[in-house]
Structure formats: structure tokens, C-alpha cells
């Protein structure tokens, strides 16, 4: 068998490693280039797109007004079985952590739903967290919703920490995400 000559291979390896080091130093991220947290986009690391929507009982809630709290933005519809399946878990976690600064927002994609069905489902399941009606599809568009449910965990700085497409989310997952973000705050 023929093996490469040691001198050539050593020179080649050394060249690659030195060039690699120079490249690491050259491509370091300048401090003023980190803009993810300033751009609103429905993706982890970006600012959660802001919206103002009405709740079922007519109150107005603006997402950016909840800065300083941990927010779960859960986009759902009353005809969607996995959306309905995860609601009791969201309610339970909301009840456990609401006094520690956790807010759950159930944003009903009303452009593909009816308020009557939403009201009926919310009553039947005894949901106590705010249910918002996205009547003109603003949040559905801003959050680029392609399937329901889709959930966004938003940190106290308004930046999205995690995105979950599909469901139902397990209660342990919800709780662990909230606990993880609460650790950041305290």
C-alpha cells in the first residue's frame, strides 16, 4: 500500500489549521452587528411581532405592553383537535405560574373560525387565561402561521425563545419552558 509522505501531510494539516485560526478571528461577529433582537420576526432570537387584539370580553391587549413578563402566544382555532387537546395543559400551567409573571395568550385565528364556537369551547373547558380574537388575521399573518396550533414562548425582553409548530404540547414541556425562562428573570 502507498501512504502519503509525512512531511507533505504535516505541512498540509498545519496550513489548514493556521488558515482556520485566521478565519475564526477574521469572521468574529462585531458587537454592533447583532440585530436579531431588534428585528420583529416569528423566529427564535427575534423580537416577537407586536399586535393589539380584543379579548372575548371586549378588553384590549397589546403584546408589547407585557414586556417584563413571560408570555406564551398560542395561535389556535376551535375546529382544530390538537389545539383543543393542549388547552387544559396551558390552563394548568397558567394557573401554576400566573403569580410568578407568566401570561398565556390564546390567539384564536378568527379569520378561519367563528367567535360563537370559540366562546362555547372556552366556557366548556373553563379557560381563565385571555383568549384574543384575531378577526382581521393580523397576528396570523405577522406570525406566518401555516399550521395550527403554533406556539411562541416570549421572554421578558420581548424576544422569542422557542417556537413550537404543531401540537398538542405536553404539560411537562410547557412547564419546563416556563421554568427555564423564569430562571432568567430571577
Amino acid at each position, binding site marked *: 500500500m502507498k501512504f502519503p509522505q509525512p512531511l507533505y501531510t504535516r505541512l498540509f494539516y498545519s496550513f489548514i*489549521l493556521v488558515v482556520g485560526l485566521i478565519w475564526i478571528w477574521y469572521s468574529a461577529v462585531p458587537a454592533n452587528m447583532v440585530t436579531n433582537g431588534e428585528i420583529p420576526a416569528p423566529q427564535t432570537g427575534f423580537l416577537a411581532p407586536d399586535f393589539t387584539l380584543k379579548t372575548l370580553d371586549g378588553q384590549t391587549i397589546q403584546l408589547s405592553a407585557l414586556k417584563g413578563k413571560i408570555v406564551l402566544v398560542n395561535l389556535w382555532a376551535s375546529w382544530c383537535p390538537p389545539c383543543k387537546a393542549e388547552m387544559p395543559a396551558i390552563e394548568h400551567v397558567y394557573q401554576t405560574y400566573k403569580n410568578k409573571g407568566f401570561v398565556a395568550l390564546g390567539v384564536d385565528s378568527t379569520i378561519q373560525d367563528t367567535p360563537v364556537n370559540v366562546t362555547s369551547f372556552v366556557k366548556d373547558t373553563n379557560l381563565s387565561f385571555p383568549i384574543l380574537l384575531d378577526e382581521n388575521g393580523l397576528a396570523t399573518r405577522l406570525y406566518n402561521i*401555516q399550521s395550527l396550533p403554533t406556539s411562541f414562548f416570549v421572554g421578558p425582553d420581548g424576544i422569542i425563545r422557542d417556537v413550537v409548530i404543531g401540537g398538542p404540547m405536553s404539560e411537562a414541556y410547557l412547564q419546563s419552558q416556563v421554568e427555564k425562562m423564569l430562571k432568567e428573570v430571577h
Partner: protein
Amino acid sequence: MLPTLQIGPLAFPVPQLSLLAALWLGLSLAEKLSSRNNISVETLYGLVFTGLLTGVAGARLAYVLQFPAAFIQSPASLVSLNAGLLNPFSGFVFGTLGMLIFGQRARVPFWNALDALTPLLAIMAVGLALAHAASGEAFGAAANLPWSVTLWGARRHPSQIYELMAAVLILGVLFTQIKSYPLPGTLFLAFTGLSATARLFLEAFRGDSATIIGGLRVAQIWAWVVLILVCLLMEYRNHRAIQKDGKNG
């Protein structure tokens, strides 16, 4: 970007489908090439499934230990299909340990086994790049170039396409050269070295890099460390092979 594929009332997650398809294709290719590495098909599947099972179990166990209170309140979540309830690093460690134990018990030659797994790893790298392209994760840094794409509110490097091109190129280079490797393990080391080089180079165009002091990108530093290890191992094994060759000749 195509995070979900809607077929009638059903929504399929495209990133996960890409990874599943890559696993299937990778296993098929690894199976076809297993005889070149003196590994039986049964042993190959045994290795992969042991790795997958111990990896998933370890990843879930680590997550449970990280958030025990969440599972005490909801014990049914222990067996939940929710992929978020996994700790990926622990999964990698447990999966590797599982495969090592299986390999030792089945007396599988270490370097041959790694070579046999390389086709699977190389195709999984392609699948991962496709998954990133579908989900919009691993996105590029803002850049106004003729080939930039608009993603997450800015014109950006199409980093997922760079990743895909690199993965396909590595796959092509490795498997057009497959007959010319002199030592068992060279295929795996070549794959690892090329992948580390690609990551070291392409990470510079990412917009989501984790950084440390001075803005240095963590993934590049890890890739460089892996590259050193690969170079040292290649050099050491080559040196020993030349000595052995000299004694025999």
C-alpha cells in the same frame, strides 16, 4: 421555507420528514456499502438502532433530570412523543455509548464500524441542511448580495443553501474516492475533517451564531478543535501504517 406540508386536513412537519427520509436513504446506502467494510448488515442495523434507542432514552432521561418537577406533576409526559422533551447533547453521548457497548459485545472492529456508518452520517448531513432550509433555522447573516434571500425581515446569506451544497459536495467527494482509502477509518476521518472544515468556513455567514468573548463564534472554535483531532489521528495512523509497512517490506 416550508415548515409544514398540508395534505387535506393533515399538516406534516417538513424538517422532521427530511430527517426521516435521510435516515432511510442513509441506512440503505450504508447497507449497500457495508460489505466493503467487513461489517454484516445485521451488525450495521444493530449498531444504528442501539444508538437511536439509547440516544432517545438518554436524551429524555437527561431532560427529566433537568426539570423533575414538570414530570412529577405530569408523569404521562415521560413517554410523550414531544421532541422538545429531549436533551440533544445527552442524546448524543448516550447514543455513542450505546453503540460502543454494542460494538464491543458484537466484536465489531472499531474503525470499520465508523467507516460503515459514514454513508449514513453523510446523508444525514444533507437531510439536516434540508430541514434547516424548510424551517428557516440556521439562517444567514444580513447581506445585500445578488444571491441573498429575504428571510426573517432582512436580505440574508442563503446559509442553508451553502450548508446543503457543502453536504452534497462532501458526500460526492467521499463516495467517488471510496476505493482509494488505504486504512480502515480513513473514510470516517475524512468525512469528519471535511465537515468540520465546512462548518469552520460557513459558520462565518450565519446570523444566529452563539458567540463568546470578542464575538468569536463557538461553533467555529469547536470545528477547529475537531479538525486538530482529525489531523492528529490521521497523522498518527499514517505514521504507524508506514512503520508497519516498512517492517513487513
